């Protein structure tokens, strides 16, 4: 995997890591899939703090439909990792009640499409609770949602929900693209005193990487430049970071140098990193899976032209899904933005005078 360039010193570097049983028995940084990294993060967070609770549909006995929560119920007991009735609004609703009593709930919504029944609890209560209590009550709830498409799934299992949460003040939204980020963004989300929506790119669950569970990665609110380039900035996140990196290899054959910015954290947004890159390249393409209209690309494009208008050599372009429902699996390959759609945008941007 591509490494983050020039990791700067950051808040939390000097804080010793809490040691759980796995950390003490694994002396070297392990190679983990993203799914394993998330599992390790849940394990380590539960070992570090008794207040952390994991619950949802099929998370305990089964270990989750993707086995992401495997072993947690056995290790920490059914009071701390438990199966709930099949009701997403209920899952988020009890998380709010548990948070009021000082717990750090980490509920799972089994699939992106099933976040819809929980929408009211997330938007009307979870997001607003701190403000509605005039700052008196923390809502340290981390909602894990296996998200996005590309796995040939049946309908309601491939949705991009981030725009809903990003349009809701009070929620934070993070999307890891690598196993290391999956581990650290989740650890940081769980200790955040605000609610965090943690979207897991399920088609990257099986990517592998050495994960250093001792040295914190970048905090929530910081983007990472995954590849340095000079001609066009590609701004993306989650499952499409790997897509952008492979497109960047292809772009080299055309003589185009792409810089790939992985947002990691959509709210809070690290616009400074985006701006620094676009100032350098003068061109930006935003890429995400979800439909184009009012996707996060619309916000990023607006923001880039508002703040960087005179640095731009070309309009900000968007390589996205279409304004249709997510298509059946046999059509998803052509629906999803891939290297071709991204490079078409790059070509248009480079073709500007």
């Amino acid at each position, binding site marked *: 995997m591509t490494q983050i360039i020039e990791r700067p010193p950051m808040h939390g570097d000097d804080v010793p890591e809490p040691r759980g049983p796995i950390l003490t028995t694994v002396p070297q940084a392990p190679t983990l899939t993203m799914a394993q990294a998330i599992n390790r993060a849940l394990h380590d967070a539960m070992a570090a703090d008794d207040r952390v609770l994991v619950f949802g549909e099929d998370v305990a006995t089964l270990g989750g439909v993707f086995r992401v929560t495997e072993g947690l119920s056995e290790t920490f007991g059914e009071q701390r990792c438990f199966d709930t009735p099949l009701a997403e609004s209920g899952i988020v609703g009890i998380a709010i*009640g548990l948070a009021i009593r000082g717990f750090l709930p980490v509920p799972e919504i089994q699939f992106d499409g099933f976040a819809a029944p929980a929408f009211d609890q997330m938007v009307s209560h979870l997001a607003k609770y701190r403000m509605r209590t005039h700052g008196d009550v923390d809502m340290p709830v981390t909602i894990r949602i296996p998200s996005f498409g590309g796995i040939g799934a049946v309908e309601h299992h491939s949705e991009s929900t981030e725009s809903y949460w990003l349009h809701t003040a009070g929620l934070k939204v993070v999307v890891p693209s690598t196993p290391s980020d999956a581990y650290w963004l989740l650890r940081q989300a769980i200790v955040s005193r605000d609610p965090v929506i943690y979207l897991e790119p399920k088609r990257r669950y099986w990517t592998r990487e050495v994960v250093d569970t001792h040295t914190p990665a970048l905090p929530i609110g910081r983007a990472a430049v995954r590849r340095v380039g000079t001609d066009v900035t590609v701004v993306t996140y989650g499952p499409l970071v790997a897509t952008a990196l492979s497109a960047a290899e292809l772009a080299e054959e055309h003589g185009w140098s792409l810089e790939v910015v992985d947002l990691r954290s959509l709210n809070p947004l690290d616009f400074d990193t985006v701006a620094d890159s676009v100032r350098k390249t003068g061109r930006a393409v935003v890429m995400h899976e979800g439909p184009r209209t009012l996707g996060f690309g619309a916000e990023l494009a607006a923001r880039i032209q508002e703040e960087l208008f005179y640095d731009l050599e070309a309009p900000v372009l968007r390589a996205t899904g279409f304004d249709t429902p997510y298509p059946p699996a046999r059509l998803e390959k052509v629906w999803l933005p891939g290297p071709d759609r991204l490079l078409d945008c790059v070509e248009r941007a480079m073709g500007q005078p």
Partner: protein
Amino acid sequence: MALPFPQPAAAAASVDLAPIRLVDPDGSPTAEDRYSRDLPPETLSWLYELMVVTRGLDSEFINLQRQGELALFASCRGQEAAQIGAAACLRKTDWLFPQYREIGAFLLRGITPAQMGAVWRGKWHGGLGFTERCCAPISIPIGTHGLHAVGAAMGAQRLGEDSVTLAYLGDGATSEGDAHEALNFAAVFNAPCVFFIQNNGWAISVPVSHQMAAPSIAHRAIGYGMPGIRVDGNDVLACYAVVAEAAQRARDGGGPTLIEAITYRMGPHTTSDDPTRYRSEVEVAQWAALDPIDRYRTYLQGIGVWTERLEERVEARSKRVRADLRESVVGADDFDVGEMFDTVYHDITPDLVRQRDELRAELAKEA
């Protein structure tokens, strides 16, 4: 041959349609002997004081709304016995999860008129300082906060406490999906949670008969596998006794209870509503004759707890609380605009800092 599924643990329970009543509408004690009405005299007079002061406060809220000082108000007139009886039997560390009409319960918990008035004044959402009194902020999306009560009760289980939570819901709320999920979760997890449904007859303009086809709201408890009890919601002692019993069962590990308190909303849904469009004067007059405060006063007179001195004390307290509301709401400063940005997150985001600065610059230009 029996099907290879787990067999039910217990036979289905039944629900008595006749509500529990300890004091008849004429103020005389009933023959009901399953529950006790013998509370210490100071508790009996405290309940009376709470009910009278709540009604006075309620009237003052309506006055202030009529005078243009408040945007809106949802009166609890007629429901004082239900909401006060339910909260009065609990410990002050038992969390309450109210709707928006429970000013009697707020008063009982020591939430000040200014703190509850903040909502109706439009000063702040949710109310101020509620959680310091183990009371959740008001919840306007109907039926959704029952789940918070269940989650908090599950938290109490995990903290090893013997506390309970109480969710106030209404008849309309029981039609919401979240109410179903809350009742089901509570039963499945045996959560120490009491669901107190104030069936006041009307969800704005829609009568209970249009909310469900079940024989009663309490009957729904059968399907969830928890006790369901109907109580006369205009009888403060019955509400006190029934909730006390349910709370004790929950503390002892016996799980949740669904209580249907039958009462009546004497006023409009809110100050913006016109109930003459959907209900008859005859119906309102019938319920006026069942007034919970009149009934309780007569009962107290009968047992010698009511005295002229008590009445004077209660009236004086009512007057003070009404004056307090008027002064604290009308005289209060609005919050600084920064508060609406600063309370969204624990750590404000860079974008919100920017937007807060933009607004401050905008306001400075106008000034």
